């Protein structure tokens, strides 16, 4: 399997404060990888290192098989990058912006650019500085999709956008980047959970996990156990149980390593006979809230 994005022990500090620590990230080819984490987790820092906007203190990052510090115009012509807060040349009209960028990209597709403008409902003759935030993001995205990039990196693209614009962007991104690998960061899973194939959770600069969405959803369960009265008051909790709450005979927890039979065996090992066990699948949002809480508790 090839990895359009791969990092090894990537670290970065800002004035002595660690922004990311030993980040090992692998984004699979043609996957849509969601990099999730609270604000300040290090997502933007990681992405900026990948794009060679800033330099890592240690470790290395490879993008499209090239050390990120050596990204040349050849690689950049295959990468689309859109970030919240990116400075666009406000004096350019939407149309001129696209026509200015066109000669930089050998794979530029005029018909796709026109289609994107139409789909995003972008006014061709309006200056970028006169566009709303959402429209600017659309313009940036259109300018980054029109050459059919092999890799699309989106850093918090939906921040500050209303749901309608967000949906329009998603609808624009997916068909236009059918054969592309996408790395998208967000602090809100709701924004991206509907279309990502892989997810990584970054907290305080550390990648807590990175896996396929289906696997993640499969291994997290909310467990509710009704005890049979004779259970120990201070049991040794199995590894992988999180957010454990106990109220009399009722125990609630999240099992992050759920496997039907194995989990049941664990429950019996801890509590002996129980009256009732229920394992409910969790929505992704609940999984991340659980992880975030656990991470904070550990810290």
């Amino acid at each position, binding site marked *: 399997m090839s990895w359009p994005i791969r990092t090894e022990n990537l670290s970065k500090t800002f004035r002595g404060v660690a922004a990311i620590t030993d980040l090992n990230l692998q984004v699979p080819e043609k996957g849509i990888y969601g990099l999730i984490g609270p604000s300040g987790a290090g997502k933007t820092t990681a992405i900026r290192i990948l794009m060679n906007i*800033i330099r890592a203190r240690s470790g290395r990052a490879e993008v499209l098989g090239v050390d990120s510090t050596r990204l040349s115009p*050849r690689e*950049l012509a295959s*990468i689309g990058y859109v*970030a919240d807060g990116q400075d*666009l040349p406000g004096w350019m009209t939407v149309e001129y912006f696209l026509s*200015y960028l066109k*000669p930089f*990209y050998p794979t530029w597709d005029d018909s796709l650019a026109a289609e994107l403008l139409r789909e995003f409902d972008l006014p061709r003759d309006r200056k970028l500085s006169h566009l709303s935030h959402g429209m600017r993001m659309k313009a*940036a995205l259109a300018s980054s999709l029109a050459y059919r990039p092999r890799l699309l990196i989106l850093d918090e693209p939906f921040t500050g956008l209303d749901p309608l614009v967000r949906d329009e962007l998603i609808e624009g991104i997916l068909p236009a980047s059918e054969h592309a690998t996408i790395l998208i960061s967000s602090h809100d899973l709701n924004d991206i959970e509907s279309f990502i194939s892989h997810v990584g959770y970054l907290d305080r600069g550390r990648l807590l996990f990175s896996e396929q969405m289906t696997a993640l959803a499969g291994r997290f369960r909310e467990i509710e156990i009704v005890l049979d009265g004779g259970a120990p008051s201070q049991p040794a909790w199995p590894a992988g149980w999180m957010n454990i709450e106990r109220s009399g005979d009722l125990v609630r927890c999240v099992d992050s390593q759920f496997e039907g039979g194995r989990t049941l065996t664990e429950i019996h090992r801890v509590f002996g006979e129980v009256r009732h066990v229920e394992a409910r699948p969790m929505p992704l949002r609940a999984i991340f809230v659980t992880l975030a809480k656990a991470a904070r508790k550990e810290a």
Partner: protein
Amino acid sequence: MRQALHIFRKDVRRLWPEISIVQATTAGLAFAAGPQTSWGTALSLLTYLLPVAWCALIARLVYSESPAADQSFWVTRPYSRTSLLAAKALFAAVFVNLPKFAADVVILRAYGFPILPEMGGLLWNQVLLASVVVLPVAALCTVTTGFVQLITAVVVIGLATAGWSMVIGGTGAGVPWFALEWTRSYSAGLVMVLAALSIITWQYLRRDTARSRFAAGGAVVSVYLVLAFLPWTAAFALQSRLCRQTVDVSRLQVGFDPEMKWAARSLVYRDGTVDVQIPLRIIGAPAPLQLKAEGITASIEGAGGDVWRSGQPPITLRSAGELNSLHASLDSAFYNRVKDHPVRIQGSLYLTLYGNARTAMLPIRDQAELLPAPGVGLCSATRTGRQIFLNCRAAFKTEPGIVTLDLIGRHRFVIGAPAERLQSLSYPRPISYCPFPSDGNLIPVTQFTQAAEIANSWASPTVIRTTAFEPVAHVRKDFQINGLRLADFEPAENRK
């Protein structure tokens, strides 16, 4: 190259208002600097406005793809960095250098200078414009993200410079070097240009703003150090090497001038310092060369072995007409130890020898008629009533050398009276020994006017003769003076 032109066209489209302002200001300067206009105030204003307009244009140019701004859109686009740098260089050449070149040509033509012989000055002016304005401003802009940071940097550098000047002013290290000043300016300029080139290249190719800012700070400090601590003697040695003529100075001798003993001084001040002046006699100059003392280094050794050493020239030399003196500021403790016994003074006198006299005869007319005066420029001699005016213009720089002016005329009432020198005038002008063909002034023509009143009615000057001597050698002559007793030079009231 195609990408560079693409970026260039974008910058032209973006910056046309700024380009228009620079072109209008440059054109205004070319017009206002002409000899026929009386736009003195406008010209003064334009000489300030044009550099500001250049700086603003360069800043806008760099900031349109700022290497220091991480969020700038171009950073993640497939720009070839060399194309980007080439586009910016092309823009500066086309909209800053080229118009200034054209303005220089217009001004030179307006003042009657032929263009082809002045091509060296025209081109060197462009080098200086790039070195003093374009590169440093561009370098500063590549390490800042916008005008706020740029102005902050300029203010910080300005304050640091003012502070440094105050500190250095107190030590005497910053005294002007006059004709040798160019060595200091060019040394500092070279540091600045090398640093600017490195920073610009590094920033465009690597975008390493932290290191580049550090380098910029280091460059500013280096410029301060060069300006303050470059030894005058090293500058003089460089100047000597640049003179290709060899002059035999074996007979040249420097010693105490007993005929000028009255000018020797040992002045004791209440603050504990003692000013000693020793008049020097210089003999044996190779004829027909003229001498000019530029500086002196010396040591004074007392009988007990106490030694005082002078600082760097030129403050160690006092010149008044033909009189050249060693000027030593001693502390009173040293002075008191050595003053009553003969001392030994050893040192080196740094001299410029002038020769290759070239003369021009300029007829005095009622209407100005420009004629070439070698070593001076284009000159006209005119008469208004009893006033005689010599008006000279020099392109790009005043040629280094000594110029004498003689008013030549005949006796009015004696038929067949021979022409004779009626009056001599001085011709004060700042000169530089700089070997390069331009001083880099914003207006490429400098003018000097000398006026003389006809003193008597029986003779009337008809011609002004200019004689220009050019520097042919810069030599160091070592000397030793023995047996002087410094106390002998104290004024009578001090000795009481």
